[in-house]
């Protein structure tokens, strides 16, 4: 056994490993959902096609860009901490948080629009649609909703890390927490990378 971590109280690799394993469970959580999506789409090919027209590709694309950029900024903030540039790191995290917020605002208007047009599960209009289309909107709300929930959790995590950096708890030789927050945020991005084409682009 190459390394025992006992002699020091901190085990960065262990903590990173914990985070990765957590990410794997999240991947499988969404994996199950993607499986349902795949089977349903195979069954209701046409309906999905039609229903997806109701989604706004532009909004989706903007959100994709927002998430990709935020993913980059949080990755960069690790570089900044490693280079001992505390202020740059804080700024980058600030940008990440802002972008996350922008994503949520976008989502809010998107959902709001759908709900305004009565395109939510159980509404009178949706119930008149074909089964496949109802299911599409169900999946749309379920998947993006679960994703949005992860965004909120991610934002809380990043906010916490932000203050840890500010108070010098996270330093160039001790930034695992930041890295874990980053990993979590990238997971959110990773899932969106698949959600976007599957929900918005199959028209």
């Amino acid at each position: 056994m190459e390394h025992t971590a006992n002699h020091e109280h901190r085990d960065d690799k262990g903590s990173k490993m914990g985070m990765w394993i957590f990410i794997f469970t999240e991947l499988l959580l969404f994996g199950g959902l993607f499986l349902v999506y795949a089977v349903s789409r195979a069954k209701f090919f046409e309906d999905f096609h039609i229903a997806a027209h109701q989604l706004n590709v532009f909004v989706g694309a903007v959100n994709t860009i927002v998430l990709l950029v935020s993913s980059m900024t949080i990755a960069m903030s690790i570089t900044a901490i490693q280079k001992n540039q505390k202020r740059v790191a804080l700024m980058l995290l600030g940008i990440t948080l802002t972008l996350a917020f922008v994503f949520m605002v976008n989502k809010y208007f998107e959902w709001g629009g759908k709900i305004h047009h009565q395109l939510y599960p159980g509404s009178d209009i949706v119930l008149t649609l074909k089964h496949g289309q109802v299911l599409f909107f169900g999946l749309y709300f379920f998947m993006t909703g679960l994703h949005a929930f992860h965004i909120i959790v991610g934002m809380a995590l990043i906010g916490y890390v932000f203050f840890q950096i500010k108070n010098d708890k996270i330093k160039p030789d001790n930034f695992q927490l930041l890295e874990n927050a980053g990993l979590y945020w990238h997971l959110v991005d990773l899932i969106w990378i698949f959600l976007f084409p599957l929900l918005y682009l199959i028209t």
Partner: protein
Amino acid sequence: MTSNNSALHPGSYLDQQGKYKGILGWLTSTDHKRIGILYLMCILVFFLVGVTLGGVMKLELLRPGEQYIDAQTYNGFFTVHGIIMIFMVVIPGLAAVFGNFFLPIMIGAKDVAFPRLNLFSWYIYIVGAAIAVLSQFGGKGAPDTGWTFYAPYSIDSNTNVTTAVLAAFVLGFSSILTGLNFIVTIHRMRAKGMTWFKMPLFPWSLYATAWIQVLATPIVGITLLMVIAERTFRIGFFDPSLGGDPILYQHLFWIYSHPAVYIMILPAMGVITEIIPTFCQRKVFGYQAIVLSSLAIAGVGYLVWGHHMFTSGMSDFSRMAFSFLTFIVAIPSAIKVFNWIATMYKGSIKINTTFLYSISFIFQFMIGGLTGLTLGALATNVHVHDTYYVVAHFHYIVFGGMGFAFFAAIHYWFPKMFGRMYNEKLGKIGWAIVFSGFTLLYFPMFILGLQGMPRRYFDYLPEYSGGHFISSIGAFVLITGIIIMVYNLFRSAKKGELAPANPWDGRTLEWTIPSPPPLENFDNEVVVTEHPYDYK
């Protein structure tokens, strides 16, 4: 069980430690041993509740027709019995109790990798269990879907299915966090010199289990969330009246729940693999084969879920593929059985309560496993699917296997955990009654199943009454044995003889430290040079 023990030796984990005293000291402790004991207590309570429900069911089935409870109550009972037993007793069972207590010690660590997370998992478990208990009362009555929550009945049923499903979801979360913790612990905290292939086999089995917990549980998590969404918003994932696909639900459910049966049995196999070498004073036979078979079970076990759906209307190709894979997964189990028995060859065998439970584990696991083969073959499955044959199969494996391994483990490690010896004579009497009661209770179910008695039947045709009658008698023999066993353990924890550090002459690390173990397990850093099970 815990008072009186401070006299044993100073500094044991049972003594007051840290800020809080008494019960609060237990509820806030992040010590892996204390958390293990917390799980033990909860699981014992839930086990007795589940077992009581099973007993009432058997009482009802004593004779055909309505006896003591009505059909709705009966349906609620087997659902709750299943939920409690599966999600609250056998899945956390060995891993959370003995895994928590002994995994760090056996790999020479002071604690698990994330002690606070560990305590947090226990709290999640308690919350989940509380929700499960809640689902029994109020609202529209106890859930009545069976533990499998098959759609569309689970969507139509007006009972508290949502609450029960939520409970299973929360309990799954606790299981995931425990698994995560164990994987990191095993990767990062092994003592100096303990290479992967010098690690004892119980930690190995926990490692394989932990991966299943981490990678399979989320699937059932999302599925259960979808059931809740379906019940609340009528989306149409699984509800055929909305164009959904009930068979898709079954796929998702069993993608988790088949691997889950290996979550139950792998740690049990690990326990047996520890006990047999100790009581035979012999190096375990085929160490590497046992390690590899654990990993193989975890891997292949992931791909056989469809054998629960052979008559569901799945494609014929799938039926064939799943049947094939099911037979493949039987091989690693067979390898383990052969190696256990080979370990006994030319050993010096000490027969006591622990060993008797282990032997009955092997015997019952063989029966359960071999009948699994008839279930896995397509032609025979069509006949016995969803009959009492299946009920007998899984009680033999889950109770006769995992349950007996749990009993074996608690006897084996009892001196280490509580610092006292159990009463051997009472233990053996208890074993004999438990074993015969078990056989009487479950063996007739195989025959009932072959005769065509379907499961989840509140009432049955008169031709099945003979089997049910014998089986009901067995239930009461069994519970007598269980009561004797539990009584013996509780009494011995207070009044038993003081236990030496290594009463069974074991070789793994837990036997090198005092009984009960001190707070941080080891005084000095542990350095391992030898293989485990090195008997000279």
